[in-house]
């Protein structure tokens, strides 16, 4: 509320509903004034449109081979050239965007779905439960970077669904830590004591009173986590541990294109650029959201 242009001080005594509403508007206003965040939103919007309308925008089938038209460079017919089986790279990449966005979003849903309840229960109840949960999270965090996702996908087997699960589960400890910290801070607040005195159950206190107040860091983390999951998934695809042929996943396309890098480098260049821009988009929005949701920087 420290932005006087958006919410004048004298209006702050409004009802809770209006205050929430103007808080939301303040965040959006702040976000839209951040050049990086606007560019990020535009990039994500573009990828979303491309993914949703992939069947309309595609000029060719994403999976049909055309062996007489292999490894063609960019042309009026094949806007980004063709791959080693004569498939149109542009059309494949449109469908690949669906996969990457899907992996990013679903893995975050999995991460939040497990990490947030675990973190909040652990932080709220404390004691032995907290100690055990924290040690378990320590164990998961002991796997550096992409390694935990690799281990999980090794056990589950390859394929897009398992990549979603692997990247999602690999992000669970991050959410659990984050939410635990927020809940620990929030449970000392007077509104929690008031809710408890009013006889409201623990479950209700955690999910209806505390968590809504801890949303900001979860939203920021999720934006970055989508980016990380997309990178991890592409890495798994590249290693041959992710999406399998003929799925047009960007990392897998890039991996196949490696063999033709000397003669048809478009097969590696463009999928990589697509991953880069998609990740960049989410990172830019994440940076912007972090600033917009932090009352200190507003």
């Amino acid at each position, binding site marked *: 509320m420290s932005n006087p242009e958006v919410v004048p001080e004298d209006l702050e005594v409004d009802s809770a509903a209006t205050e929430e509403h103007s808080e939301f508007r303040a965040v959006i206003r702040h976000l839209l004034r951040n050049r990086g965040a606007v560019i990020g939103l535009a990039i994500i919007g573009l990828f979303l449109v491309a993914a949703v309308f992939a069947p309309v925008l595609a000029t060719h089938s994403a999976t049909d081979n055309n062996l007489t038209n292999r490894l063609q460079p960019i042309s009026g017919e094949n806007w980004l050239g063709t791959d080693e089986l004569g498939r149109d790279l542009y059309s494949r990449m449109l469908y690949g965007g669906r996969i990457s966005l899907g992996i990013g979003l679903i893995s975050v849903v999995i991460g939040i779905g497990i990490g947030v309840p675990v973190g909040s229960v652990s932080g709220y109840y404390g004691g032995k439960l907290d100690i055990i949960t924290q040690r378990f999270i320590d*164990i998961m965090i*002991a*796997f550096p970077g992409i390694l935990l996702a*690799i*281990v999980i996908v090794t056990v589950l087997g390859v394929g897009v669904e398992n990549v979603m699960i692997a990247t999602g589960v690999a992000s669970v400890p991050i959410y659990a830590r984050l939410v635990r910290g927020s809940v620990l801070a929030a449970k000392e607040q007077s509104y929690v004591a008031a809710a408890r005195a009013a006889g409201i159950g623990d479950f209700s206190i955690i999910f209806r009173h505390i968590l809504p107040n801890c949303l900001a860091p979860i939203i920021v983390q999720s934006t970055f986590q989508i980016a990380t999951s997309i990178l991890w998934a592409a890495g798994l695809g590249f290693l041959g*541990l992710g999406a399998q042929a003929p799925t047009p996943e960007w990392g897998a396309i890039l991996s196949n294109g490696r063999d033709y890098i000397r003669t048809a480098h478009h097969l590696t260049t463009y999928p990589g650029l697509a991953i880069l821009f998609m990740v960049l988009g989410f990172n830019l929005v994440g940076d912007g959201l972090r600033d917009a949701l932090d009352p200190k920087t507003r």
Partner: protein
Amino acid sequence: MYQYIMRRLLLTIPVVIGVSLLVFSLIRLLPGDPARALAGVTATPEYIEQVRERYGLNDPVYVQYGNFMRGLVTGDLGVSTFSRRPVTTEIGERFPRTLTLASLSLLIATVVGVSAGIVSATRRNSIFDNASMFVALVGVAAPVFWMALMLQLLFAVQLRWLPATGMGGISHLVLPSITLGMASAALMARITRSSMLDVLKQDFITTARSKGLAERVVIYKHALKNALIPVVTVLGLQFGILLGGAVLTETVFAWPGVGRLLVDSILRRDYPVVQGTVMLLAFLFVIINLVVDVIYAFLDPRIHYQGQDN
């Protein structure tokens, strides 16, 4: 301080045991019969039974775990089902190469990242600041394996300055270590910059400046020391992440380290090697985190007061 370090050390023990339990059970969940894999495709059922007996695969799970832990301590991690050589030998041969690659990458990342961060912070909003922060954004977003391929394409295929893949002289290390270090450099530049900007806002910097100290002294003697505390933490964590990230970089550059060994072993279903490699990388990461925490406690005197409170 001593108490804090001891407490931190003791907390590491359950984590190490937990990691070993997790890896041990995950490997046992994998499809396929390890005895059959060890005996080979053409083996008779009798021979497979012999192998099962010899490697203790008929023992109850807790006995197997006990053997596994004993092996971990004595350095016996089993035999590769692919090369039939001891896992310790396989890893021991390759680990120094990964360590070299990761260390060199960390060095590059630190030198490039920290200096870019300092210059960006001291010349805020200059062309250099904007340009380096833009490069940093791209450096974090670019997939490491793609960056590797693009650098290969430019410096090995087009310009022919450097070898594309393999191992040999120092020239073979240039591209892999730059690729691997790039994302870390970008991250460190961003953290150094924001940490430096925070410190430069503080009162003791104003005091130092008002005493008439040269700007150079203010920046490098007063500000930098404080600004580097968060950088040290990230530096340690990055080292672990670089060891993990080596999986991708080593694959692109055909660098025969543990990262590539891990991926190859997963694809070959050579589970004893997978188990050993994952364990090694996780243990290293735990140890690195421990060291980082201890260094952090030395650098930031506020930490050990908290430790004493508990």
